[in-house]
């Protein structure tokens, strides 16, 4: 699946998108965040406060207990500040 990062999540990780293949045990957004945070220092920094992170699956906002099965694109970003 493709992951996208925005705002300070993108800056901390150091890239705006990447393809990943999480192991089968990673079933929800929350578990995906935990798996990413364990991948290295930049990820650990980006996801240091996992509750602050917002996620979208295929362009729709989701809660962290959402299942990731079948997702083509999952995005992580801070709370929105548009308008």
């Amino acid at each position, binding site marked *: 699946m493709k992951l*996208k990062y925005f705002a300070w999540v993108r800056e901390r990780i150091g890239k705006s998108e990447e393809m990943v293949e999480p192991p089968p045990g990673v079933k929800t957004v929350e578990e995906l965040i935990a798996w990413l945070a364990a991948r290295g220092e930049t990820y650990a920094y980006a996801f240091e406060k996992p509750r602050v992170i917002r996620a979208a699956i295929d362009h729709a906002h989701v809660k962290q207990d959402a299942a990731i099965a079948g997702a083509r694109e999952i995005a992580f970003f801070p*709370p*929105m500040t548009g*308008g």
Partner: protein
Amino acid sequence: MTDNVAIRIQEADFDIASEISALTAQRSDVGAVVSFTGLCRGSEDGAAIAALTLEHYPGMAEAEIARHADAAMSRWPLSGIRVVHRVGRITPGENIVLVVTASKHRQAAFEAAEFMMDYLKANAPFWKRVEAPGGTKWIEARDHDDTAAARWTRS
């Protein structure tokens, strides 16, 4: 997307008069048009800023705004909605966002414009970074905006 809903995300500035006129020209059933323009202010939390940089989630931002505009079109008797949201670097005094709503009567136009702005502030996938003399920082979301957006949720 419903007819008479137009959503644009662009770096260029917008022209308020032409957006309004797109909702009123060649028709005589519109009695009320409300426009909201959001501008970049010269200070943020009391400190002077040099500019804002706006980032968005291409694809999701357009689709989400259109979905909310469609919801507004169903909820109020509107003849049209136009939204233009700028991205990129924006300096104090410049426009950031425009929402225009048109209806037969004023209450629907006012309410729908507020609904769209509350949504854009709290839930549209845009992020603002401030350039100040001391460096840059991301603007933090305000609880106030979440509260404003939540008031439109039907129970």
